[in-house]
């Protein structure tokens, strides 16, 4: 979680200095959800992610240098500078890619789960998405197909209360998003998305269910993003009090105090983990910044994979 937090803070800083093109969608405050879910997964299990996907990529094991390099438009970036923040994929850690289209990853994850089932691989596919995606047709179609075919898929919703500026109160006629699972005949599970241990437990149960061939689970993890939707967000749609209240539920100090109370870690160890994260991010940034910039030559050849003779 510290790695995700520090990574996002570093991105915020670099972007604020004008070193990154485009815009950034930061997940500060939401670290517990991807962490808890990915802890229940193996490297071969697959994920699809969203425009707010840095946390998912890191939790699944992505290389920090290559991530920063991609945001800086470098050749060694995950996409060679051609994809940017919203399209980072890492085949080796089972990451089928972040997606810039809301809901775009849901049918893809269903397809990955379908392939896993057809090939008897025993892996699961997790689609991370936000509350906003639950109203996209793609969510409905993917959830239904996963349900009827009992695909080994987990639909993991990070409900941060807002689809850009529309609150869930205004975008849904129901109060409990997990109820939608009933509509497809699959279990809908609520979890405190800022409690990494709780997320892990729910995630593991869903993974077990999927691998046992019992089909998909819809997980609604309640969380909150501290920063605006993107760097150009003026936060006109929510109050300071709301933001303040959620800051007190910061997942990282919560876990730290819980671990210390349970006698599993002491303060020094926790600080060391934080420092390690800081150093790792700093090293990644410094290395990425020195890397060669991506060049336009070769763009035409990059569209298609070459047909082998």
């Amino acid at each position: 979680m510290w790695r995700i937090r520090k990574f996002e803070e570093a991105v915020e800083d670099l972007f604020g200095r004008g070193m990154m093109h485009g815009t950034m969608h930061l997940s500060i405050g939401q670290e517990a959800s991807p962490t808890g879910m990915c802890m229940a997964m193996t490297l071969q299990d697959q994920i699809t992610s969203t425009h707010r996907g840095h946390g998912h990529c890191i939790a699944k094991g992505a290389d920090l240098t290559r991530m920063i390099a991609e945001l800086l438009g470098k050749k060694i970036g995950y996409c060679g500078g051609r994809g940017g923040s919203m399209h980072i994929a890492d085949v080796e850690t089972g990451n089928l890619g972040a997606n810039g289209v809301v809901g775009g990853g849901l049918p893809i994850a269903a397809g990955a789960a379908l392939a896993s089932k057809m090939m008897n691989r025993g892996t699961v596919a997790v689609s991370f998405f936000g509350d906003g995606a639950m109203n996209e047709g793609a969510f409905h179609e993917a959830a239904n197909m996963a349900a009827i075919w009992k695909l080994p898929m987990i639909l993991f919703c990070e409900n941060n209360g807002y689809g850009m500026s529309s609150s869930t109160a205004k975008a849904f006629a129901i109060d409990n998003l997990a109820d939608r699972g009933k509509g497809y005949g699959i279990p809908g599970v609520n979890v405190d998305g800022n409690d990494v241990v709780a997320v892990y437990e729910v995630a593991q149960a869903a993974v077990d269910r999927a691998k046992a061939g019992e089909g998909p689970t819809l997980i609604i993890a309640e969380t909150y993003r501290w920063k605006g939707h993107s760097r150009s967000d003026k936060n006109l749609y929510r109050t300071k009090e709301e933001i303040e209240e959620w800051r007190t539920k910061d997942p990282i100090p919560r876990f730290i105090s819980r671990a210390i109370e349970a006698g599993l870690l002491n303060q020094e160890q926790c600080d060391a983990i934080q420092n390690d994260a800081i150093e790792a991010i700093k090293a990644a940034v410094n290395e990425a910044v020195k890397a060669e910039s991506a060049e336009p030559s070769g763009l035409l050849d990059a569209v298609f994979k070459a047909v082998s003779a």
Partner: protein
Amino acid sequence: MSFKYPVVMPKMSMTMETGELINFHVAVGDQVKSGDVLFEVMTDKIDMEVEAPADGVIESLVANPGDVVEIGKPVLIMLTETEVMAFDFGDDNEPVASVEVVAPAPVVETPVVVAPPAPIIVNTNVKAVPKARVEAANRGIDLRTVHPTGPDRTITMQDVNGAQLDPAIIKRQEANKALIAKGIEMTRGIAQASFTRSVSANFDHAQFIAAWAKVLRGRPDLAAHEHIGVALIIESKYGSALPVFRDPDQSSIADLAALVASTTDAAKNGKVPVAMLSGATTTVFDLTTYSMSSATPLLFPNQVTSVTIGYESATTKIVSLTIDLNFCDFYDGALLLDALVASL
């Protein structure tokens, strides 16, 4: 351990380059918590509150309210206990990328070679299929002389290959040629001499004929007529037209220029006003559009002098003069040409 952290003007939209600092919410010495508002900034699209990235104390204020600050440049400095993820890569904050610096190309002294203006062969006012244009250009056929038989009066390949000229145009071309041939025949027997000079000057037809007329005006002893009429040869698809400009040195250059322009247009369409078809006392032939440098000017009947303008280079022209030795001797001829060249 205390960290000194500069809070900079953040980039808040894809196109933002500077922001205006509106006001501070804190003062030097204030304790702040992560998330507290430090100051407000404005760009043309967005007003934003900039928050403290961590708990700490305000050490100093760098910018002033109302200042326009570049993104990435500090607005205030705070001291924090927790290390803030901050990366300052130097003044311009550009990541150091290995950019190839292309050495400027060495300056090579090349002699200025200017191609002569292309001879006018293909007329873009005429419609022709692409291959016909290519064919006409290759064979030096003037498409204005090709009779179109294709739809919408478009010249087809057949037309170019057969080069069927419009019978009406052929007739006029023949008539014109006959007239000029007759005139030349008449003057062939006259004793004449020619001179040539180069001149580095720019001038248009109006300026030239006005200058020439003025020179002639200064030598009434060499004239065979009372008035001066300068005939200017203008080529068109109908052949050569020779409109005469009477006493061109006596109108304003602007009026003369307008007259030359309208007459040239008319001549290209085969319509020279009848009044301008007589009274020539001298003839001017501009060869530059044919890239020709000189041709011995031919005397026309009842004319004492004839002038050609030839092309030597982009900046130099060749002016040639032929005189009727019955009216003008060698010396006078040379003086006339000198005077003309001097006045250009």
